[in-house]
């Protein structure tokens, strides 16, 4: 008999920390990662010696990078491993940390996402896969094709698409850890340079460097170490799936629909229960597609709902309060862990000027090349 995360002992996020996402520079990844870990430890009121296992979400830096980073916190000999799952690397690292605690293997685990964009390589070449479009279809063109199909199918407008970036830039301007911290107007978002299809530069996420850390703990550890239980956020569910055969249906949306449903079912809630959502908005069209795939809006309705402000901070459900990948940035490994940091801050009521009122339940969603999808549901519930 299999069990869900909620059937096992409770797992709670007790500490989160970030290194700001930024343009690629000379900062060693070790400094990025340790900065985020120290911030998470301080947030939790823990010391490094309390951490019993570590997972590093990374995809673009180097192999075997964990120990070279964690040694700067004191070499305690704990198990550590890199987790590579494309854009979902950080989300998968967080899932592994949760599983460690839920299963009772450890009482406290940490997920750290850290990356520098040093070697971004797609798997098709080594896999021997060739097609007619080859390198002519970069990720932005993959999503430009989806954007034009969406516009054709539902009568949405390029302006409605661009409003996703307007909203997320407004949120990112309130986030000191965001790579893009400037609120943009619709005219600015629509302005050249054109990238592909209806997508302009500001409708594509920046890929930079940074780090994020999230510490999860059992109730035993929270009691034993006298952590602040009132600030601990329950991880209600963790769902992870990979692409199957969809016969022409958009696989990113289909995979999101399946994985989100699993996560919501495991958590025992419905889409209408969600207050805050962080999703994989690497390109504006993705936010609309995934909002619909998650069941937050009927098919073809997300653009209109967004234009009405339903996904704003203070709206029906706040989407990408951090600024999302479009404004907070997408340094790959850190991104999924950074979402957990944002949801945790929102559910604690500690998100400052970008706080969504009354946030009690949140969802974090990432897709990754392959394709894979990872979704977590967090809650203030016991």
């Amino acid at each position, binding site marked *: 008999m299999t069990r869900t995360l909620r059937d096992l002992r409770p797992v709670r996020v007790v500490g989160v920390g970030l290194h700001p996402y930024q343009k690629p520079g000379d900062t060693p990844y070790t400094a990025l990662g340790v900065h985020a870990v120290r911030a998470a430890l301080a947030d939790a009121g823990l010391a490094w010696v309390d951490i019993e296992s570590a997972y590093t979400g990374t995809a673009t830096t180097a192999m075997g990078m964990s120990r070279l980073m964690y040694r700067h916190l004191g070499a305690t000999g704990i198990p550590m491993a890199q987790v590579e799952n494309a854009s979902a690397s950080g989300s998968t690292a967080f899932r592994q940390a949760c599983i460690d605690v839920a299963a009772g293997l450890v009482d406290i685990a940490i997920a750290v996402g850290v990356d520098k964009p040093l070697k971004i390589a797609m798997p098709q070449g080594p896999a*021997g896969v*060739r*097609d*007619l479009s080859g390198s002519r279809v*970069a990720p932005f*063109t993959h999503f430009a*094709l989806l954007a*034009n199909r969406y516009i054709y199918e539902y009568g949405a407008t390029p302006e409605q698409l661009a409003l996703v970036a307007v909203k997320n830039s407004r949120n990112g301007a309130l986030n000191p850890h965001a790579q893009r911290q400037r609120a943009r107007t619709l005219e600015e978002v629509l302005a050249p340079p054109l990238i*592909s299809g209806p997508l302009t530069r500001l409708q594509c996420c920046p890929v930079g460097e940074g780090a994020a850390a999230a510490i999860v703990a059992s109730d035993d550890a929270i009691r034993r170490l006298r952590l602040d239980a009132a600030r601990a956020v329950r991880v209600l569910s963790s769902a992870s799936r990979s692409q199957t055969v969809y016969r022409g249906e958009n696989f990113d949306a289909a995979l999101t629909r399946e994985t989100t449903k699993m996560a919501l079912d495991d958590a025992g809630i419905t889409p209408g229960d969600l207050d805050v959502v962080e999703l994989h908005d690497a390109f504006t069209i993705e936010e609309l597609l995934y909002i619909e795939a998650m069941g937050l809006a009927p098919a073809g309705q997300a653009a209109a709902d967004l234009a009405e402000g339903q996904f704003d901070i203070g709206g029906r459900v706040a989407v990408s309060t951090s600024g999302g990948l479009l404004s907070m940035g997408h340094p790959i490994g850190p991104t999924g862990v950074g979402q957990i940091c944002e949801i945790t801050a929102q559910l604690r009521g500690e998100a400052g000027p970008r706080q969504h009122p009354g946030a009690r339940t949140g969802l974090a969603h990432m897709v990754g090349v392959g394709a894979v999808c990872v979704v977590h549901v967090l809650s203030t519930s016991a």
Partner: protein
Amino acid sequence: MKVAVHRGLYDPDDGVPVLLGTRCDACGSTFFPPLGVGCEVCGAGPDQLGSTAIAATGVLHSVATVHLYHGDDIAAPFAIGEVQLDAGPLIRCTLAEPLDLDAIGRRVEGHWVVARVDADGNEVIEPRFALIGDAAAGAGAS
């Protein structure tokens, strides 16, 4: 002499473009680009997979004009199309020329286009897709 841009995906000596895909004898699925290691649908091994000729015809599913491109095999802007082939697979391909969104849903077919001439004087050709009946399509190759 004609040489394919994408070796193994079509025969450049065919009169009209025909795509070389894979058919699974175990479950009947058709794939393009071809699969050689195993069937994505049922997991059958290579002994169940065979090459199959696929007509380069279908329905345009989406389009995008690419403005940013760092490769040197084609100059931006150029157009990419998503085509639901009559044989089943949904493919991405280069279009003979940019198409508006109102072309989505219309029938398209592949035409030979000379991408370049190599150092030996060979025509390096590839199929690019255009609306069926579009007189401009295929003007780049004979």
